[in-house]
């Protein structure tokens, strides 16, 4: 059948199973938006306040579900506003397809109004990107984009569509989505070696990352831990993969990981790294990281193997397939001496002490968990509150913690929470943690949550300073607080009212308990400002380049 580019755009989205997209209209995408208007029963379009919010929303949608998030923006500034969101998704391997309009092909390269060479701009922060120059190529290019975003190590793909292509007409043939290519094979000999090494281990430790979640290999991983009694530590990206309270879960590793995990990494004799890249926030010193261990690394991306830390045995493959093949070869085992050491370290670990005179982050987070139960989805911005949330939340769901890990994007949270809430429905409880610094970056998206009646509860840790940077200045820069004390006088309750949502302010725990309980009853979004001390720190901490010997516990 003969269709124009905009009709093809909508048809291929539907063909790929897309029912929700995030975006912002503009001149170059008028034709696409006209077609979306006609097809509003097939595709829900979520209009955000800013394209950056839309890109984070598409990202949050993908992280909450594992499906591909879709964002649409106009040419020029619309496209460049997506850049931070695309880079965020790229660093955390999130499947996303970004569509941008562009000026009509005859105007490309002539500094036309709202023209930007977005293909060139996003080349290093996408898995791949395309400019569609002929309407005949549009459908297949879009299909490739969805395939690339989901295959192998996932990531964002950008498709740039000039305006004349959205109007031109060509023959369109519907197709079923291509099966996603995943690496189902791996070297069986290496898996056998790995199993032999694990079976012989006295002090084994599993260290896993976001790849486990991407590969949907949470269950085989948990089976491995319990079959051979292997304690496990995780990165920020994998919180919730092994639930809180699981005896094998010893907590997060890395710069703000717990003492037990970092100590276990230093003392283990076999380290099994699954779907993780030994980033500089975990392997703070690549030369001393797990220096007493034989390291086995399982990853789908060959370029990650041995990239940051030299490993002894590496297996390229999808973690689900590799772990399932490995499991039957693992002998049931117990490591009582090792577990005893770990329990002793846990007893010595950092535990925050509540102070009745002030509101403390761990109390707030604990109270949120008490009131929400294990089913809630938590989203964070970036900074101290993010680390507190990672440390103190009782993570129970593999896709229940949405945070910007690799890029560390302040302002990520609100957009991502909108995406997660849209993906999971209004009956799903979504709670966003932020700090006053991050929140000021993109709080404009509150208007989106109001428009769509999304019951997102935002918990703002207000210490009136840029806490994480300030903490570094306290510890390493002689308390010279350069530009971390902004003297803002934002009244969050009034600001909330201005947006048309309900705001609360709390200075102690009973106030917070009451405010949160009330927020749970609201239909629309709410935010709760928690006034905390500006000297509140994230602990423990291992400074960059250090190891367990450098840990700061107080």
């Amino acid at each position, binding site marked *: 059948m003969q269709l124009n580019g905009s009709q093809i755009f909508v048809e291929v989205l539907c063909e790929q199973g897309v029912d929700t997209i995030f975006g912002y209209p503009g001149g170059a995408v008028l034709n696409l938006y006209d077609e979306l208007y006609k097809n509003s029963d097939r595709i829900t379009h979520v209009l955000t306040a800013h394209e950056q919010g839309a890109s984070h929303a598409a990202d949050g949608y993908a992280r909450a579900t594992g499906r591909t998030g879709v964002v649409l923006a106009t040419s020029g500034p619309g496209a460049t506003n997506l850049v931070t969101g695309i880079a965020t998704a790229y660093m955390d391997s999130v499947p996303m397809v970004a569509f941008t309009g562009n000026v009509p092909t005859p105007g490309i390269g002539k500094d036309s109004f709202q023209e930007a060479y977005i293909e060139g701009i996003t080349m290093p922060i996408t898995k791949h990107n395309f400019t569609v120059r002929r309407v005949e190529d549009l459908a297949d290019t879009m299909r490739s984009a969805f395939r690339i975003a989901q295959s192998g190590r996932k990531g964002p793909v950008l498709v740039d569509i000039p305006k004349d292509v959205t109007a031109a007409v060509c023959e369109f043939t519907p197709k079923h989505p291509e099966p996603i290519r995943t690496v189902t094979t791996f070297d069986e000999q290496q898996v056998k070696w790995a199993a032999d090494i694990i079976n012989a281990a006295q002090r084994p430790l599993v260290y896993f990352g976001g790849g486990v979640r991407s590969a949907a290999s949470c269950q085989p991983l948990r089976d491995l831990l319990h079959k051979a009694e292997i304690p496990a530590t995780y990165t920020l990206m994998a919180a919730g993969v092994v639930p809180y309270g699981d005896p094998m879960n010893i907590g997060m590793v890395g710069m703000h990981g717990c003492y037990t995990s970092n100590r276990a990494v230093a003392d283990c004799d076999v380290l099994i790294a699954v779907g993780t890249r030994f980033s500089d926030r975990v392997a703070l010193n690549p*030369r001393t990281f797990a220096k007493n261990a034989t390291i086995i690394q399982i990853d789908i991306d*060959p370029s990650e193997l*041995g990239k940051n830390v030299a490993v002894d045995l590496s297996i390229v493959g999808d973690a689900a397939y590799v772990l399932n093949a490995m499991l039957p070869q693992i002998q049931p085992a117990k490591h009582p001496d090792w577990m005893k050491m770990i329990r002793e370290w846990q007893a010595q670990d950092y535990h925050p002490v509540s102070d009745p005179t002030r509101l403390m982050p761990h109390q707030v987070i604990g109270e949120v968990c008490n009131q929400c139960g294990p089913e809630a989805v938590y989203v964070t911005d970036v900074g101290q509150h993010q680390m507190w949330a990672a440390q103190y939340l009782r993570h129970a769901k593999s896709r229940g913690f949405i945070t910007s890990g690799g890029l560390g994007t302040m302002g990520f949270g609100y957009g991502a929470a909108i995406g997660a809430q849209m993906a999971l429905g209004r009956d799903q409880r979504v709670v966003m943690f932020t700090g006053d610094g991050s929140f000021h970056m993109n709080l404009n998206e509150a208007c989106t949550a109001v428009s769509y009646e999304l019951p997102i509860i935002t918990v703002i840790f207000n210490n009136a300073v840029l806490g994480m940077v300030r903490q570094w200045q306290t510890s390493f820069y002689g308390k010279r607080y350069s530009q971390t004390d902004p003297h803002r006088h934002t009244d969050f309750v009034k600001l909330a009212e201005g947006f048309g949502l309900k705001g609360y302010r709390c200075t102690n725990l009973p106030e917070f308990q009451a405010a949160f309980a009330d927020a749970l009853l609201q239909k629309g979004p709410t935010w709760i400002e928690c006034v905390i001390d500006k000297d509140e720190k994230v602990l423990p901490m291992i400074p960059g380049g250090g190891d367990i010997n450098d840990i700061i516990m107080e």
Partner: protein
Amino acid sequence: MESNKRRVISLLVDNQSGVLARVSSLFCRRGFNIESLTVSATNDPAVSRITVTITSDEKALNQLILQTERLEVTRQVFVLDSEKALERELLLLKVASDVRNRTELREIASIYKAKIIDLSPDSMVFELIGKPDKIDAFLKMFEDYHILEQCRTGVTALERGGMHQHMQKPPQEVRNVQLPMSGIRQPERA
């Protein structure tokens, strides 16, 4: 571990616009200086060959190759085996000349088997094809002459004999990729 060494990498990539930008952007991000670069179509019109010369150690090179293989446009990447590689470069060299030095210039050209492809009253243009070191040696002979213009194509290279094992990697197949660090731990991790 091998130290810094000159290496010639052969990349088979999709023959379409933007591919060179993607590859060179990756090299740039990793901090490699491209010493020489040639790009052309192959016998398969859908495929281009990029031949790149860089200086690198083994570890950084492995990492670079694996990251290059990750690009959607990359079909195959391999480092040429210096024992088997046939490397050639083309030089065009324009030298100021007149009646007085024409004979000596012709002498140099004939020893190096360079062709004179233009002779004008005030200049001569030589064409020389050879390995990069032969071209370097030829250019050294002109240190005392007045070079007006010079152009080198950069290395282009193939390996002797039929298809070698490392060239027969099926395109875009992740699973057979050579693992960089398996086996014994590298000494630097003492």
